[in-house]
């Protein structure tokens, strides 16, 4: 889901060397999961510049490292959309089946990983062959997938677990549950681990128990640490990816009576491009937390109220701005990373329900 920093740096250097201010455009793409659109914001001005119609409930976003292509998964109609990120137009779409969630792509842009929520399956889509070339079965409900930007040997898969009653009702609604191969599934297994999938073989080569249903995850660029939100834990986990184990369980400090007595959960987590901080959020409390990750145990450096329920987090590649989707408020909160202050709110159409976001440095035509 992120631009490899080495490649981003090359782009920025190229920009400087050429002295061409228009050699690339940095854009924020926002999946309006409550609707059918992806909104495009010019990061230079933090203003909405374009709306793309893609399909029902866009959810996952991933960009090629050169910023040339953007991929978007739409949950509602089960499609994968290929977007020309230079012109911001859709060039192709592929039907992968219902409930597509988050997606991630290898650094060469070849393999794209996408979870099918109700089928216990991550599909591996070959962008050159334009077909699914492998399927990775997992427990639970495939939702999130990330890579380490500088090391895409592995994909980290975090299927969540939903309430068994909901599974049963959903099975009734759909006729049956399906497995990876599309065959009827006889049992639903909840999940409490992160899977490690080898991108060379597209097989699971390890798992990391996390003690609950994993939610959004984020990897450090060097592939040494994974940070995970999990259900039932108001905070996040620090995972050593070499040892493949949880090394720290961080709890948010609850300050006000409201925070101490009102239920909330952690959702949305990402590492700043300079790799110094990890940010995550408490949804119902409307607070984003920034932690210094250059030390371990990690150290809280800022508590940022954003005024509505924060849900997903991304950053501009120059480390200046953090973008927090406020699904409840139909807006994007823009946070100055250095000062940890809310500097702007970008309003979006009512009911748009912004969720996943992705900043892309796209070449200029």
């Amino acid at each position, binding site marked *: 889901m992120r631009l490899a920093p080495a490649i981003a740096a090359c782009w920025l250097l190229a920009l400087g060397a050429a002295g061409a201010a228009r050699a690339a455009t940095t854009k924020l793409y926002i999946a309006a*999961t409550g609707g059918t659109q992806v909104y495009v914001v010019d990061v230079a001005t933090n203003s909405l510049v374009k709306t793309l119609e893609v399909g029902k*409930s866009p959810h996952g976003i991933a960009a090629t490292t050169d910023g040339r292509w953007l991929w978007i998964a739409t949950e509602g109609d089960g499609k994968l959309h290929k977007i020309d990120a230079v012109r911001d137009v859709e060039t192709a779409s592929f039907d992968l089946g219902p409930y597509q969630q988050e997606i991630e792509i290898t650094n060469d842009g070849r393999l794209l990983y996408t979870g099918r929520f109700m089928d216990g399956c991550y599909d591996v889509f070959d962008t050159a062959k334009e077909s699914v070339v492998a399927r990775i079965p997992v427990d639970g409900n495939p939702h999130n997938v990330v890579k380490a930007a500088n090391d895409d040997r592995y994909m980290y898969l975090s299927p969540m677990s939903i309430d068994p009653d909901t599974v049963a*009702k959903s099975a009734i609604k759909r006729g049956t549950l399906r497995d990876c191969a599309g065959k009827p599934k006889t049992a639903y297994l909840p999940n409490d681990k992160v899977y490690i999938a080898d991108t060379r073989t597209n097989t699971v080569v390890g798992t990391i128990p996390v003690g609950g249903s994993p939610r959004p995850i984020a990897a450090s660029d060097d592939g040494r640490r994974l940070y995970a939100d999990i259900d039932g834990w108001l905070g996040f986990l620090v995972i050593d990816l070499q040892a493949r184990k949880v090394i720290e369980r961080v709890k948010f400090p609850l300050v006000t009576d409201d925070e101490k007595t*009102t*239920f909330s*959960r952690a959702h949305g987590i990402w590492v700043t491009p300079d790799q110094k901080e990890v940010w995550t959020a408490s949804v*119902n409390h409307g607070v984003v937390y920034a932690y210094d990750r250059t030390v371990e145990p990690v150290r809280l450096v800022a508590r940022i109220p954003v005024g509505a329920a924060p849900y997903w987090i991304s950053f501009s590649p120059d480390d200046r701005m953090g973008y927090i989707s406020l699904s409840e408020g139909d807006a994007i909160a823009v946070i100055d990373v250095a000062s940890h202050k809310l500097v702007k709110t970008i309003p979006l159409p009512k009911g748009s*329900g912004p969720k996943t976001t992705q900043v892309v440095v796209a070449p200029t035509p």
Partner: protein
Amino acid sequence: MERRALIGGAAASLAAAATGADASPSPRFLPFQTPVVIAFPQLEAVWAPAPFRARFTKSNGEDSVVPGIAVRTPRRIEAFCTYCPHELCVIKLTDDHQLRCPCHFSLFDPLRDGAWIAGPAMRRTYRFDHRVKGPDLVITGIEADLERRLL
């Protein structure tokens, strides 16, 4: 007029049945530490929600606060718990008079006691124990089933 207003939830199960709303059996309620009292004049305008928060004691002894809204619909005065049964995000009343979760977009029908319409919640909103007392709507408890989600 206010004294004769019908209210939703458990106290209006007969009325609910008559109007085709969710008529599932009355649940067990956990009492609030202090009842919420909303005077009818606060609910004069149709579809203008009055938000409130109420505190109860969980079985582990800890306090918990539950959010809700009281609202006059064209049919009656209702009170809805605004925790979405799916993942406990806080649902909102939309301009087109539905209750909508901002996280995963479950929809509930305020004209049918918060009955589930669509989305991953797959059940109606949690119920409040509430009644009309004089010129007020008095909300005294929350459906006990919510507690297992909060422990």
